[in-house]
């Protein structure tokens, strides 16, 4: 019965969100049936569609796990967006500096790299950079909360603004190829690239950018599950989330757990960079994230802060992100911003329904 209850309410929330969203679509003068069929029907039709949907789901698995781990410790990490931005820039930086990148500046070749590492060193180095830098950016609000008690929600939002501005500055002034009209860094070295799945699985069409990061994301779902439920550290982290004072009475330091949870959360968010920088784009670009960090909140809530739930919810949002493009293109008024609205309504409904299901992973007072 418990499992059934865990599953029913997220479903109800999604359906409720679609109904409210449908009314909004109707009010702004489009046909909700058309919009929704565009939204849902372009995701499963072929191997190409499924590949794209999984590709869109990949960053959401990471950010969903990131938010869920923080939730389990009673923290709301709204900073995944900033964490993945900073991590992505850092990953590109390492990929350029150690990847033997040579930049073409108005026909003149210039070497921007310090070294040219082989792939078996550079790929893990870039991945480690993504994890560590994301973790550090996540740790800051954790430390601020543990040391000064300042609320992680405000601090993570402020750090989003700061992080995105900071890497925007570095990109514009130091790592952008002069003359490039797009705010992006130079390309990372080839040795930093991670393989696309269609290089091994030939039935996946050549244009599907689904890459190794998807498999890493699946692996992380398993690791997060093992960490949270099969280790002492995970138990302590959850104990603080359930009841900080009881945990402290039991000899667990909530402050330490808060810092650990936020660091892990930031590291998971930072892993988005592995797929996006090393797998898909091969550079850092301003505005590259489709608000994945924020979507992660809806993914985590919908997935009941459980890795398996996060995976399913991320796939669901992958479908929506894939479909949004078609809705945007083929309806008159409905734009990608419908995504924000649906997401908001889903979060609101899940938050409201939580009362009826077991109170789990709720945010503690800050």
């Amino acid at each position, binding site marked *: 019965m418990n499992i059934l209850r865990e599953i029913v309410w997220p479903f109800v929330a999604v359906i409720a969100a679609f109904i409210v969203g449908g009314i*909004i679509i109707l009010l*702004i*003068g489009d046909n909700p049936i058309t919009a929704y069929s565009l939204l849902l029907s372009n995701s499963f039709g072929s191997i190409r569609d499924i590949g794209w949907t999984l590709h869109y789901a990949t960053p959401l698995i990471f950010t969903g796990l990131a938010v869920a781990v923080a939730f389990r410790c009673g923290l*709301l990490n*709204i900073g995944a967006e900033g964490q993945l931005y900073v991590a992505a820039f850092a990953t590109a930086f390492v990929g350029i500096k150690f990847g033997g990148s040579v930049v073409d500046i108005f026909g003149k070749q210039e070497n921007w790299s310090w070294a040219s590492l082989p792939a078996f060193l550079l790929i893990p180095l870039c991945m480690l950079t993504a994890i560590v830098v994301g973790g550090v950016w996540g740790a800051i609000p954790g430390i*601020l909360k543990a*040391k*000064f*008690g*300042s*609320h992680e*929600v*405000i*601090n993570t*939002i*402020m*750090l989003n*603004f*700061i992080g995105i*501005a*900071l890497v*925007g*500055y570095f990109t*514009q*002034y130091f790592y952008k190829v002069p003359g490039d009209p797009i705010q992006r860094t130079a390309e990372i070295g080839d040795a930093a690239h991670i393989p696309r799945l269609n290089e091994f699985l030939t039935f996946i069409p050549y244009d599907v950018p689904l890459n190794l990061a998807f498999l890493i994301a699946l692996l992380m779902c398993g690791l997060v599950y093992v960490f949270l439920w099969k280790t002492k550290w995970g138990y302590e982290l959850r104990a603080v989330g359930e009841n900080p004072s009881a945990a402290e009475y039991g000899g667990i330091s909530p402050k330490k757990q808060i810092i650990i949870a936020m660091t892990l959360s930031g590291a998971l968010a930072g892993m988005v960079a592995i797929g996006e920088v090393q797998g898909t784009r091969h550079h850092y670009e301003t505005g590259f994230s489709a608000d994945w960090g*924020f979507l992660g*909140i809806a993914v985590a*809530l919908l997935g009941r802060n459980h890795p398996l739930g996060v995976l399913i919810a991320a796939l669901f949002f992958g479908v929506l992100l894939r479909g949004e493009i078609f809705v945007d293109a083929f309806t008159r*008024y*409905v*734009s990608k*911003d*419908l*995504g*924000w*609205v649906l*997401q*908001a*309504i889903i*979060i*609101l409904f899940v*938050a*409201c*329904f*939580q*009362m009826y299901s077991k109170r789990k992973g*709720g*945010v503690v*007072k*800050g």
Partner: protein
Amino acid sequence: MTDIINIALLFAAIRAATPLIFAALGGLFSERSGVINIALEGLMLAGAFTAAVITFQTGNPYLGMFLGIVAGGVLATIYAIACLKFEADQVVAGMAINFLMIGLPALISGVLYDSTGSTPQIDKAFKLPMIGNQLSYASILAFALVPLTWYVLYRTPFGLRLRATGENPQAADSAGVNVSKLRYISVILSGLLAAAGGAYLSIGQSSLFTKQMTAGRGFIALAALILAKWKPVPVLVACLFFGLMEALTIQIQGAFKMPSGEPIPVQFIEMIPYVLTIIVLAGFIGASRAPKALGIPYRKEN
């Protein structure tokens, strides 16, 4: 330095503080009654967008301001129902409201103006009226609301009940206070005030709505509220401080040069209020005490 600190800076600080004062006073009512209001940002956006649309359509800024405030009240009612009736986690529900207000204005402006989130420019004649050419009447209103809030909070039965509810809802309940009703009123009041701040942004300080134009002001207002220990007069001081910082950042632009002779990059200027908010929160929160029942749903016992 002398050319930076001047009377124009003072006015600029007051202008920048105005939306913060509205929003922070709004947050004060909600939080003193025990309901966290992280939705201030979204409530401001609701006011800003509605005010801009109505003013552009009718050419009447008063109607724009009024309906903007109403929109904030409606949105706050939804938030209040989620938090109070359904006992949703207040921080999570608040963020949902904020997300909603990123998407909804963009959708509506797409229909109305074929844009991706902004309204057309409002004619200068239709903006909120100014005193001279430095201050808006809305700023005066914001300042006037501070003593008014103080009076309501400390000198009226409503204020007493509000404070009692935020500190100890059980005791307030047994003394005959309708805790739920009082919290509804407080949250809706916070929506009205935050939306007024938003409306000032779009039709007073600026002359159009742009997507996410509040740029974190709702959260900065919340930081000001915490810095001010949830008290009305310190709220004014805290908001003026943040307003002064915002005004300074605009003045610094171009006035100072980096050692290399280049102007300070705009990204660094933009960061200042956000860095400051973090520092202020870290430095002062220890000395600040939140209302005891903040964020805890209250269920009446039978």
